[in-house]
């Protein structure tokens, strides 16, 4: 696999971040370049899926912030180690946190690897 040194633990991380940034900020030239590079290094199917996820989260983020849903405490705990580095703790939505809505008759639920309740 063709992985550059700035990718860290995630293959092609730097390229995928460049692609996402160009798409969301509307930088057409950077988007063209990143798109071409993804197809070349990762394949056309990867481009479809990367564009799909970026598009989906344009929606998910607006759903969360327009509806004012709380962020589940378990999610806040799970992301504590890297949130500050992203600057996310200063976002307006950081003040809106609530317990995960586990079904009343459930003993516990799983959120990723975490157990809730």
């Amino acid at each position: 696999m063709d992985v550059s040194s700035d990718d860290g633990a995630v293959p092609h991380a730097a390229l995928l971040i460049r692609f996402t940034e160009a798409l969301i900020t509307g930088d057409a030239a950077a988007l063209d370049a990143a798109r071409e590079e993804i197809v070349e290094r990762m394949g056309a199917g990867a481009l479809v899926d990367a564009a799909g996820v970026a598009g989906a989260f344009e929606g998910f983020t607006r759903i969360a912030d327009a509806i004012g849903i709380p962020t589940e405490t378990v999610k806040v705990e799970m992301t504590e180690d890297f949130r500050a580095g992203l600057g996310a703790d200063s976002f307006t939505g950081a003040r809106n946190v609530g317990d995960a809505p586990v079904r009343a008759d459930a003993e516990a639920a799983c959120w990723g690897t975490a157990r809730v309740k």
Partner: protein
Amino acid sequence: MTELAYEDSPVAVREGLANAHRRAWRRLAAPGTWWSGPTRVAVAAEVRNAAACRLCRGRKETLSPYTLGGVHDSLGSLPESHVDVIHRIVTDPGRLSKTWLDDILASCLSDAEYVETVGVIVNVMAIDQFRRGIGMAPAPLPESLPGEPMRVRPRGAKPGAAWVPLLAPEDVTEAEADLYPDVPLITYVQRALSLVPEEARAYNAIGCEQYTPTGASWDFESRVREISYQQIELIASKVSVLNGCFY
């Protein structure tokens, strides 16, 4: 009827994904739960128009987006208050506030009309951005279909957890029985559009194709797409940060 097409796509688009987009485009044109077809298509057009709005650009530069007044550069098909809702959600979603929404709900939109507006916005943005991502222009908007909206509100929706009432899994009736999977935890984002169940179903269908299918595991070593789970979450996190979204 303008069909959304992928025949000219520079890369092959999965059939399930293309079908989900075609269904979303047909829904966009048709009467919804609270808005008519023409209003839904007008909302979609205003979503695209927001990027060029000078007032929105000015507000992005201010410390608080609520201090700068003025009139939006709009297409003129919707009331200014509705345009303001659309433009703010599109251009500055991370700084929306409950106080702002309470004013909207007290003066110009019902809570359900607001939720349906959000539903139209997110469908259009998800599809437009996907197409830009693969190197295609946004699809022409569909021609609206005649007919009346259904105007049906889920009886079990309750205020409390979010800025608008949500329908909890334990409160669904037969009409919404398909809304949630039978699992102990339904996250808030899954419930967010539930005041208008049709919008919740519609975005769930988009999410299943563009993000991960319902029930996909959290196993970061697994692969449900051509990119890995880690790569998927990396992109998702980057979009969230760029949009100022804590959730």
